[in-house]
Structures are given as C-alpha cells and as structure tokens.
C-alpha cells in the first residue's frame, strides 16, 4: 500500500468504489439477432404560439415576429404535408373559442391548448435577455403525442439568432419528433476522446469501448477505472443536464412504474426551477465551465450519456469544450436487439455529418408584396410627420420620424419607395383632409400601395410629447394599424422615435406574416 496520507486513502477508496457491485450488474450482452424497431410518434400538425419579448427593447420585436414566419417557411420545405398554425391562426382560434392565452407555465395548459388547437405539437417561446449584442431566446416544444416537453435555449448574436434557432427547431421537429428519435447538430470529430456515463454492466461497457476503438475513437478513463456500472438512478440524474442551447427534461419513473422518457411534470419542474433560478450549480455558463474543467481533468472531448433498459435506449452526446448538445437519440428496441448492434449504430450515426435544413435565406430582408398582386414588390410612401405642437423647436421631428421609419423598413423589407414629389403631394393633401375618408384619392396621388403617416402633439399637463403613426393599405383601402408613443422632452425622445419606427415595421411585418401564413 503506497498511499500514505488519509486524504489520499479516502480518494483511493473512491477510486475503487462500487467494486463489488460489478459482479451483481447485468449479465452478458444480449444475442445478436434482430434490428431496431421504432415507435411511431410522428407529428402531423404543429402550432406556433406567439413569441414573447420579455425585454424592454422594441427592436427585438423583430425576432418575435420573424421567428414563426421563418420557421414555418423552412418547416414547410422539409415536410409539405405538415399542418402548421401560425401565431395569428392560434390567436384567432383562441378568440373564436373564447379562450385567453396568457402564459404556458401551467401543466394542464399545454394539454388543453393542444386539444383546443387540434395539433400534435406546440411551440412557444420568450426573448429573455439582450446583453452585449447577444440575444437569449428560450423556446418550449411540447409533443401532444408523447407528452414530451423540451426547452431549447439559444444565446446568439442578434444577426445569427434567427438562422440558428430556426435550423435547430426545424431539425428537431422534423427528425426527433418526426418519428426518427434523432437530433443531431454536429458530427463526432474523428479520433476524438469520449468519456462515458452509463448504467451498462461492465462487460457491455467494455464492448462499447471496443466499438469506439474500432472506429479509431479514444475512450477516456472516465468511468473505466471503476469495476461496476453506475446505478440506473445515477444515470437518470444526468438526464437533466442542460446545455447552452438545449436542455431536456430528466427521466424518472411514473406512478404506474413505467419509465417515461420525458415526463411533463418533471419538465415543468425544471422549467419552474429555471424560472426561479434555483439551479445554482448547473445553469447557463457555469455548467459550461464545469464541462470544461471536466474535459481538462479527464482528458476528453465529448461526454456520451448512454442509458439502457430493456425496450429503450437513450444517448446524449455533449461537446465538453463548449457544452453543446450535439447528438441525441432515443430508440425503442426489441428484446432481441444486442448491445453491440446499438453501440455500432449509435457511433456510426454520430460520426455522420447531420443534414441540417437550409436556412441560408433566413433572417434577411423580406420582400414586401401587395396582397393580391403576387410577388410584385409593394410601393411605400413614407410621409413626413405633422407637427401639431405649433412649436418650431419640434420641427426637426417631422423628418426625424420619417427617416427613422424609413431606416427600420429598409432593415427588414425589400420594397419600392414612392416618388418623393408624390409623397409631398400626399403631405399637402393631408394638411386639409382626413386620410380615412380619402384612401382612394391618396392611392391616386402617391401611387403607393402602403402609406405611412403620423403626427405629434405636446401635452402640457403631462409635459410629454405624444406621437401617433398609422399605416394604410391604400391598394385594399384599409388601415393596417396605428401605434402611439409618449416621451418627455429630453434625450429620451430619440428612443421614442426609434420605438415608433420599430413598432410600425412590426405592424407591417405582422400583416405580411398573416398573408404568408395564410
């Protein structure tokens, strides 16, 4: 015995833990006779509930509006038969059925909403934070077929958040919930080093290491220095490992003794814990730090969590260097499926380059077309705002507001700006007439499909500047919507100008969404 200090002895004991348990583990691998069988949990309909912007930044409303539109666009490319409800459709159905949609924290609400909307899947989400140019987006996905519940968390730069989140959500819906039980964002790098967490018996664990070795992958000493398997409980505890962009619910036994893969109750518990920030050790960045430390100390690139029980296997592959979940596979297996077959398929699958949906056209400029005229670009007249304050010092706001609207519009939409002379003609006309009664005349005067027009007044009692802006669909002779903003007369006025511009654009985008969403 050469370990002398008591601390070393304790550590040494730890090194030898579970030694005896090894011989009580599961026996030899199963026979090599049959192939996998998959339960068919394929979703055929999905509803996108409105995304919520929990930040006070109006600009992020752009994501709130664009996410469902872009996700639906890509999802429909991958599965033309899928029935999809856009946020506007959901809200209309809620209204028709006299139901209010508030939040999704209540357990029964998901079930009820799915029933109400008659869909297999629900997607909702929140824009939680925006700091240092990084958007924190959290999406919840519920499968009414399996009662599975998932949370996807994204932390990405503003310009990348849409393509990243859309690609991953679409892939998840199309494959994992589409019946394949597979979610994969990256392939396993050749010659990588893998650490393993599993409830496999020692012989099967050995076999897994052999399969990894045969594919020229190295096995880290993690777990292999103990002679026994981890208990089922220990491995299921690791089910709830969350990662930077993706977290799953844990796996626990239900009251009737059936091991369900993603029980809703636990998912909601996790969700509430997260809401209450009650997960001090494993949350967000800190978890990634722990993964990195682990990667250094055990000298591994990936952590593979592999769970086995008769009838089911579950594998999760985490890149320890960045904490990202790169591989997720749930399998229903027949009793005759061998461990060897499962290991071989799992490793080979993880090594393959995943097929991610094409999102190259996501997050860019959207063509603003006019309803009923196909893909032809719409013409937009953006008039200078009317100064109703009768104060000359606010005169600059007339053009500031129209310029801000124009800039916001250009960032989101592709459109044709109306001829400036025609816009001036419109301004002159509106000095004497109300727009609502003269939409056809304004259409003739400006030659525009959409008209953006507004004014501002000063409320001396509140000591606030009141701004109002409206969008008219001149071609169809109807008001698209109007927005209001109040601001004190100080530097905050510039924020108010930006806000009103963003809100107008969002209104227009919402209209375009409804057109595209059908």
């Amino acid at each position, binding site marked *: 015995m*050469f370990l002398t200090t008591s601390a*070393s*002895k304790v*550590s040494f*004991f*730890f*090194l*030898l*833990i*579970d*030694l*005896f348990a*090894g*011989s009580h583990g599961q*026996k*030899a*691998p*199963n*026979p*090599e*006779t049959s192939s996998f069988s998959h339960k068919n949990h394929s979703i055929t309909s999905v509803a996108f509930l409105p995304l919520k912007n929990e930040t006070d930044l109006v600009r992020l409303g752009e994501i709130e509006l664009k996410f469902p539109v872009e996700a639906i666009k890509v999802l429909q490319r991958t599965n033309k038969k899928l029935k999809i409800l856009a946020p506007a459709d959901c809200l209309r159905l809620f209204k028709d059925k006299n139901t209010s949609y508030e939040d999704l924290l209540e357990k029964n609400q998901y079930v009820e909403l799915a029933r109400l909307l008659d869909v297999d899947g629900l997607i909702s989400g929140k824009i939680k934070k925006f700091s240092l140019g990084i958007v924190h987006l959290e999406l919840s996905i519920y499968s009414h077929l399996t009662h599975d519940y998932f949370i996807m968390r994204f932390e990405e730069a503003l310009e990348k958040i849409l393509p990243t989140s859309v690609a991953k959500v679409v892939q998840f819906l199309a494959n994992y919930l589409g019946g394949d039980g597979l979610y994969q964002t990256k392939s396993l790098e050749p010659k990588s*080093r893998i*650490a393993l967490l599993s409830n496999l018996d*020692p*012989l099967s664990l*050995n076999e897994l*290491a*052999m399969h990894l*070795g*045969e594919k020229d992958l*190295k*096995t*880290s*000493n993690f*777990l*292999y*220095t103990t*002679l026994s398997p981890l208990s089922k409980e*220990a491995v299921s*505890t*690791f089910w*709830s*490992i969350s990662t930077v962009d993706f977290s799953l619910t*844990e796996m626990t036994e239900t009251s009737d003794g059936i091991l369900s893969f993603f029980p809703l109750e636990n998912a909601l*518990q996790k969700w*509430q*814990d997260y809401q*209450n920030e*009650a*997960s*001090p*050790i*494993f949350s967000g960045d800190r978890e990634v730090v*722990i993964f990195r430390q*682990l990667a250094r*100390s*055990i000298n591994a690139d990936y952590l593979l969590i592999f769970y086995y029980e008769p009838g089911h296997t579950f594998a999760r592959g985490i890149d320890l260097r960045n904490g990202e979940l790169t591989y997720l596979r749930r399998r229903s297996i027949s*009793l*005759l499926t*061998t461990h060897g077959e499962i290991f071989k398929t799992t490793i080979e699958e993880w090594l393959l380059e995943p097929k991610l949906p094409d999102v190259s056209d996501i997050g860019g400029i959207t063509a603003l077309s006019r309803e009923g005229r196909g893909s032809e670009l719409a013409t937009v007249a953006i008039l200078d705002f009317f100064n109703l304050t009768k104060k000359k010092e606010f005169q600059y706001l007339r053009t500031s507001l129209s310029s801000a609207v124009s800039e916001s519009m250009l960032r989101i939409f592709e459109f044709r700006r109306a001829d400036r002379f025609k816009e001036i003609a419109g301004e002159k006309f509106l000095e004497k007439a109300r727009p609502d009664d003269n939409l056809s005349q304004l259409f003739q005067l400006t030659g525009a499909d959409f008209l953006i027009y507004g004014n501002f007044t000063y409320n001396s009692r509140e000591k606030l500047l009141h701004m109002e802006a409206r969008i008219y669909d001149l071609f169809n002779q109807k008001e698209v919507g109007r927005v209001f903003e109040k601001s004190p007369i100080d530097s905050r006025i510039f924020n108010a100008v930006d806000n009103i511009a963003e809100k107008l654009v969002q209104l227009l985008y919402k209209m375009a969404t409804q057109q595209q969403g059908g």
Partner: protein
Amino acid sequence: MQGKSSVAVFSLCLALAFCSSRQERYFLRAPLTKGASVAIIVEGENDVKNAVFTEFLKAGFQVKAFSATDFYRVEDVFEIRDIKKIAFTAPSGKEHSELTARVLDKNFENLYKLHLYNFEASKAEIIKEIRAKYKVDYLILLAMKEWDTSYSWIRVINLDTFDLIYIHNYPARRSDTVQSIIARFLEIMQKPQ
C-alpha cells in the same frame, strides 16, 4: 398451438442469447511495452489475486505493490442520497411548499452531479499521482470474481495518455484455470500489431 410455438420461439431466443453471450471479444489499441511497470487492481479472492500477480511477474512485468484490499463501495463512504433526508421548513401554503420541495430535489440532483463529476476529476488526479510518484506505466483492472462460472474481463489504461488501450471480455470455459485466463490476456495484450 400458437402459445406453444411462442414458447418455442422464446426458448430459441434465450438459447441464442446464451450462445452469443459466450463470445470472447477484445480490442487492443497498442501492445503493452515489455517489462513495463503495472499497477493491477483485481476483483476476486486473495488466492486468485496472488495467481494473477504471479503470472504478470512471470511475464516480465514490474508489478507495483498496488494493493486493493480496502474495498469500499461509494455508498459505504459517501451516501449522497442521505442529503434527501435533510428536513426543511417552508412558508405555509401548499403551492409554496411544493415549489420548495421541487427546488430542494433539483439541488439534490445538482449535488449528485457535482459529486460524480468531482469524483471523476479527483480520480484523474489520483491516477496522475500514481503515475508520477510510483512510475506506473499502466493501470490494469481485472474482474476475476466469476472467472469459473461466467466472465472475466480486463481493462488497461495507459497512464501516459490516459487512454483505454486494451479491453477484453473472456467467457469461462470448462478447461480454464486462473492461470490459463491470465495467460490468454497476457498473450493478447503483448501481441504485435
């Protein structure tokens, strides 16, 4: 009739399972260097341990005095589940106390994870210590507890790289002795590639 055939199919499957489970299987990344110094942890009776050490010494390995007589299971040393028994007080109100219970459950799980991660991390440190202080080249784990009735298995970890370089599952055969099994392992682990 149908019932009988189902039973027959099931029996056949069981038989197949049994047959295939009796397969010998190994993987060797690189042969062990001749005369290398090894630390061997053996699961089995003392006479088996001695027989194992003897065979390794005979094969020319420097067997370090790495005794594995103090075997404890982690449950004996550190019962993480005990934490669950800690009492807590919560403000009145069913909803609130349910939430507190859930939060405690979650924290328990987090502690479990942290414990396991830390355990693995400290294990890595200990192994590094073994490598540095006692100049051990390979750590060998051998399970010989059921060598005559079921399986024996071996894992070899190269302490230079921390790689698992040799794994072998060996099913018991009627003619086997501890010596013959170790001889088989020694033959494979030194096999030139």
